[in-house]
């Protein structure tokens, strides 16, 4: 059957995964392999005096690599160059890598690791956002050479200052969100081969060209001497966006020194303690409404804890700031966003990328305003939804067809919102002391698809198709399949444009020696941006077949035959496509004005929770997720993205608490950091509206991150209703809920 956009095509990788044949990085065992380990800082801040290798240990067959073994520059190049590959002097966070060891036997390696003592002079650390803000306010020196704030963004529209005085209703709110662990089920892992002239790595990663860029800097090699291959990857969620570069550098330093391949695979405890998490946030906001509930002015002070190094925080901050006013019309907006330096391990990319934090803040604010106005939260939102022709906080005109009211109505209808709310209210009134309390909450939100502003223009992505001698069309893109279904979607897009079935289209695992740079697999851009490039390449290939004499309406078998003929005669042959920035997308990075994203995906989610008054435990018992992502390329995979994202959002809201002790994750185990199991979650109703407007294939937009933005605020709104109080901090654990039910703590603003 010919592949088609819109069909629930099966995943080409499913059977290998179901039968245990798929080889992840830890399943690969090249000849002569050594295992690598990392010596890390035990303290969050200090000056390194030295590393002492226990003389009683037999070091002769242990490979030891330190900063002096770095042939190029000792840094991980990202948006800044402040993060060393191995800290040599100043230590800026706990778990910071200092020295690398390798040995053929994992047990000996572990004994060697324990035989290294880290000697350092402690310096006073700043361990969280409030500490960083307080230190700056008190004029104390910053813990980062760039200052207390690593990035600041200001967005201004109209004049909120002129509105406050006469506004019928002013609401103010301060909300916080904690760190969240990505918890891909496959820990970080990498195997490296290296000599003086070349480096090759294979690993679990999202962005092959980011890894190549980092290796080039550290090894002082040109890109053509650095090869990065993606192994089958067991989940990423942003956690394998920037971190694998550091791991690849470490494995390659050991491999170069050892002269044989080195594998580094973190165990769960090391992975959770040392790698990135979602940025904790603190948002103070103020809004003015008229007596009909129309939003008149909005002032948001958005703060992220960047951790010890800049890494990706400036762009996480940017996406957070650009989503801070939500999908609402407002004439007067001021947004101030800052990323603060602290001494925790750097916080990093995690599905949603700053937007979950700021969507949480605006949605909490809307719920507060609805309560003050005595208005249903859905009605308040309805009165403020963006419409076509409106402008956002950055002055972006909503040119695309949007129908947020229709989307909201669909969510209300699909969830039975009004009836559920009425039933919960009645049941709560009649509830005995041991009966569960229930509530229903809502969130309306959006997610900008693709890189922010001019980001896609800078990336200038490329993708290609190669027709082999065997007549098979190979998809060559740097976009990684990490579980989300990129390979399936690419196969469908190319298959439809060519008019062939799945056997004719093979999506190759990315290998920088083979695939052009299609940009990173992040920012909900893969289907829309890279899919669009592949569609273009497929059309060029189809045109070549037409020129060979293949009729326009040829059946799949004839196309396959034409491919086989051409492949045998001329293969391998490539068709490439380069990104062309839509000229109507104009962004002013200096003033933060203009088209922040070429398009947005929109959503309205409804959650129902039940709270056990005896234990304080809250469970989500019903969840409806309605979204408009333009054309749905594969409904089965799209539903899977929504369902998985909602599950992560429910964990973010009710379970997943990173406990910090002296700048270190104290609960870095799966027995103490709790994520949702099958028994904790309801069935999730994922529904789609397909308003055209995206510039992906057939009008597809981005989807991957969207579900993280609105799930937690919908759950907290439901929790407010169930308890009759107001929650302002994520995650909400039973120990916070229980006193509220006892009436011990009133809701706050």
């Amino acid at each position, binding site marked *: 059957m010919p592949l088609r956009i819109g069909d629930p095509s099966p995943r080409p990788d499913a059977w290998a995964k179901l039968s245990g044949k798929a080889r992840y990085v830890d399943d690969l065992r090249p000849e002569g392999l050594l295992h690598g380990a990392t010596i890390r800082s035990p303290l969050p801040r200090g000056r390194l005096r030295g590393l002492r290798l226990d003389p009683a240990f037999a070091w002769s067959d242990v490979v030891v690599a330190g900063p002096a073994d770095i042939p190029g520059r000792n840094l991980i190049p990202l948006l800044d160059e402040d993060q060393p590959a191995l800290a040599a002097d100043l230590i800026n966070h706990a778990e910071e890598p200092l020295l690398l060891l390798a040995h053929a036997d994992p047990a000996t390696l572990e004994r060697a690791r324990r035989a290294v003592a880290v000697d350092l002079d402690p310096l006073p650390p700043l361990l969280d956002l409030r500490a960083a803000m307080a230190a700056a306010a008190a004029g104390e020196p910053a813990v980062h050479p760039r200052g207390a704030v690593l990035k600041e963004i200001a967005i201004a529209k109209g004049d909120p200052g002129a509105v406050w005085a006469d506004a019928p209703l002013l609401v103010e709110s301060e909300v916080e969100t904690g760190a969240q662990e990505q918890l891909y089920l496959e820990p970080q892992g990498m195997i490296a081969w290296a000599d003086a002239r070349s480096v090759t790595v294979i690993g679990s990663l999202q962005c092959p060209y980011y890894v190549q860029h980092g290796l080039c800097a550290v090894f002082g090699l040109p890109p053509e001497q650095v090869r990065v291959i993606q192994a089958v990857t067991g989940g990423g969620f942003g956690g394998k966006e920037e971190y694998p570069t550091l791991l690849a550098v470490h494995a390659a330093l050991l491999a170069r020194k050892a002269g044989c391949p080195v594998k580094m695979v973190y165990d769960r405890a090391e992975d959770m303690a040392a790698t990135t998490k979602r940025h904790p946030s603190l948002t103070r906001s103020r809004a003015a409404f008229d007596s009909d509930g129309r939003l008149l002015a909005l002032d948001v002070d958005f703060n992220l804890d960047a951790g010890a190094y800049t890494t990706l925080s400036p762009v996480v901050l940017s996406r957070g700031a650009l989503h801070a006013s939500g999908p609402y019309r407002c004439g007067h907006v001021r947004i101030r966003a800052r990323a603060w330096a602290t001494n925790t391990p750097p916080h990093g990319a995690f599905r949603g990328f700053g937007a979950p934090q700021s969507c949480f803040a605006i949605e909490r604010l809307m719920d507060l305003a609805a309560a003050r106005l005595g208005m249903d939260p859905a009605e308040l939102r309805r009165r403020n939804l963006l419409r076509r022709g409106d402008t956002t906080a950055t002055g972006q005109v909503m040119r695309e067809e949007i129908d947020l009211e229709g989307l909201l109505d669909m969510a209300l209808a699909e969830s039975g919102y009004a009836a559920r709310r009425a039933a919960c209210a009645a049941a709560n009134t009649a509830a005995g002391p041991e009966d569960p309390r229930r509530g229903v909450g809502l969130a309306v939100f959006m997610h900008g698809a693709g890189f922010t502003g001019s980001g896609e223009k800078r990336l200038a992505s490329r993708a290609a198709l190669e027709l082999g001698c065997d007549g098979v069309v190979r998809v060559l893109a740097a976009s990684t399949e990490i579980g989300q279904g990129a390979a399936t979607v690419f196969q469908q897009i190319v298959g439809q444009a060519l008019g062939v079935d799945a056997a004719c289209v093979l999506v190759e695992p990315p290998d920088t020696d083979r695939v052009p740079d299609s940009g990173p697999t992040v920012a909900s851009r893969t289907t829309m941006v890279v899919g669009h490039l592949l569609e273009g390449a497929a059309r060029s290939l189809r045109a070549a077949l037409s020129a060979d004499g293949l009729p326009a309406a040829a059946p799949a078998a004839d196309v396959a035959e034409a491919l086989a003929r051409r492949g045998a005669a001329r293969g391998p042959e490539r068709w490439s496509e380069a990104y062309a920035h839509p000229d109507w997308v104009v962004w002013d990075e200096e003033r933060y004005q203009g088209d922040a994203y070429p398009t947005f995906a929109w959503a309205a989610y409804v959650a129902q929770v039940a709270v056990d008054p005896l234990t304080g435990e809250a469970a989500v018992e019903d969840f409806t997720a309605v979204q408009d992502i333009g054309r749905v390329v594969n409904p089965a995979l799209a539903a899977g993205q929504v369902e*998985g994202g909602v599950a992560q959002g429910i964990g973010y809201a009710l379970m997943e608490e990173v406990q910090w002790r002296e700048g270190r994750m104290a609960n870095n*185990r799966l027995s103490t950091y709790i994520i949702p199991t099958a028994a904790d979650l309801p069935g999730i109703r994922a529904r789609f509206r397909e308003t055209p407007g995206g510039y992906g294939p057939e009008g597809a937009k981005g989807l991957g991150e969207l579900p993280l933005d609105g799930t937690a605020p919908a759950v907290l709104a439901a929790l407010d209703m169930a308890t009759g109080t107001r929650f302002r901090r994520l995650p909400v654990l039973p120990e916070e809920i229980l006193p509220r039910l006892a009436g011990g703590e009133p809701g706050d603003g």
Partner: protein
Amino acid sequence: MAEAPRITLELTVNGAPRRVATLPGARLLDLLRGMDLTGVKEGCGEGECGACAVLLDGRLVNSCLVPAAQAQGSTVLTIEGAAADRELAAAQRGLLDRAGVQCGICTPGVVLAAGALLKRIPDPDEEEIRGALAGNLCRCTGYVGIVAGVRAAARELRGGPSAGGGA
């Protein structure tokens, strides 16, 4: 450094008798992965995630918590032997048809847990399915496709329409 003494174990793995040498402190997980049965995954090493699940004498266990020596004389079924097992094979087909697979790391363990459930309860309801899978963490699917896949497998085993049909 002196090599640690090794012990030799005899056991049946996926239907075949095997004789393997291993370190006394090795886990069943290490033993199996050392036999190139790399479909057995390590997700946490402390029995919380279920990625390393296997059937040991028909009982579902997390192989990271079982000393290899305990498998002496026993019968082990891993994902690599699923195709020859009626319930496990049905679970594989159900998950395939219901989009219960994404990144795939949890998938082998989920198949083993689902198969063990179907051997015990041929007609599980939603709560029984969710309860049986509560020891298998999945970060990708929200469990929706997995639960639907197990339900489809149960229906197929009862002789109903194949996993592909019905709601």
